[in-house]
């Protein structure tokens, strides 16, 4: 290995500071943008698992990149996203976001050169602590300057 190690950021908290609420109007707009019919029972489109955790976590996308010592302008890339739902998402319901960076691993890729693979976990819970979902996302952060 002829490049410096990835920053030591595993364990960094990504918990949000205020609840995230899915707006019924935004849910309608989102469904319209992907040719989906909004539910009539207050259930939000499940893709809000990603949106609610990303927007409600304690960092912006740029802020999370900065924690990784990575310039957001270079462009993070999604490598994977997993979610386990305990219950459906609802519009108008405040959700708390908690989570942290799980790992960051620096490696050499044939396609991208040197890159970091950053993995983070986030959970959505009701205000009384009831778990709604957990998600694990992984991003590729190209480190061309180290190639």
């Amino acid at each position, binding site marked *: 290995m002829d490049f410096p190690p990835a920053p030591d950021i595993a364990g960094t908290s990504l918990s949000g500071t205020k609840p995230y609420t899915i707006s019924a109007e*935004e849910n309608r*707009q*989102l469904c319209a*943008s*992907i*040719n*989906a019919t909004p539910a009539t029972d207050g259930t939000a*489109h*499940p*893709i809000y698992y*990603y*949106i609610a955790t*990303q*927007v409600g976590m304690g960092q*912006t*996308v740029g802020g999370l990149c900065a924690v990784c010592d990575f310039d*957001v302008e270079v*462009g993070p*890339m*999604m*490598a*994977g*996203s*997993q*979610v*386990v*739902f305990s219950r*459906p998402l609802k519009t108008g319901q405040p959700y708390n976001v908690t989570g942290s960076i799980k790992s960051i691993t620096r490696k050499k890729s044939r396609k991208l050169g040197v890159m970091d693979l950053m993995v983070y976990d986030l959970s959505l819970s009701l205000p009384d602590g009831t778990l709604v979902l957990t998600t694990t996302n992984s991003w590729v952060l190209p480190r061309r300057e180290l190639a």
Partner: protein
Amino acid sequence: MNINIGDALTPFIIESVSPESMKDWAVFLADPNPIHLDPEVVKAKGLGDRVINQGPTNVAYIINMLHNSFPGGTIEELDSRFLDNVYGGDRIETFGNVTDVKQVDNNTRISCEIGLRVDGRGDVISGTATVVVSN
């Protein structure tokens, strides 16, 4: 609902991915990354010559397929691996098939392989999903 291992899921198709909807998703995601908004930025980064669809939007297409294939079902798990980009103007089609069916209490738990394909470029997402349907 009669569901069997090997059944194909109902494909969800977008004939032409809209650059306009990427502007909406930049707001939904609170992520104004210009690769989703400005083709000149995509060109400058050497990533192509059209705007790049947000990854979560591509996952949403797969969720639409699960909803259409199992009406009234609830997604329990979804695991997506991103293999390549979807660009503005691409024709996309989701695909999937049932890999396991289990009866649990009064529910049917259906496991699936899922994915998303772009015309002319092949698979851009692959993964698995589990959906629960009340009997």
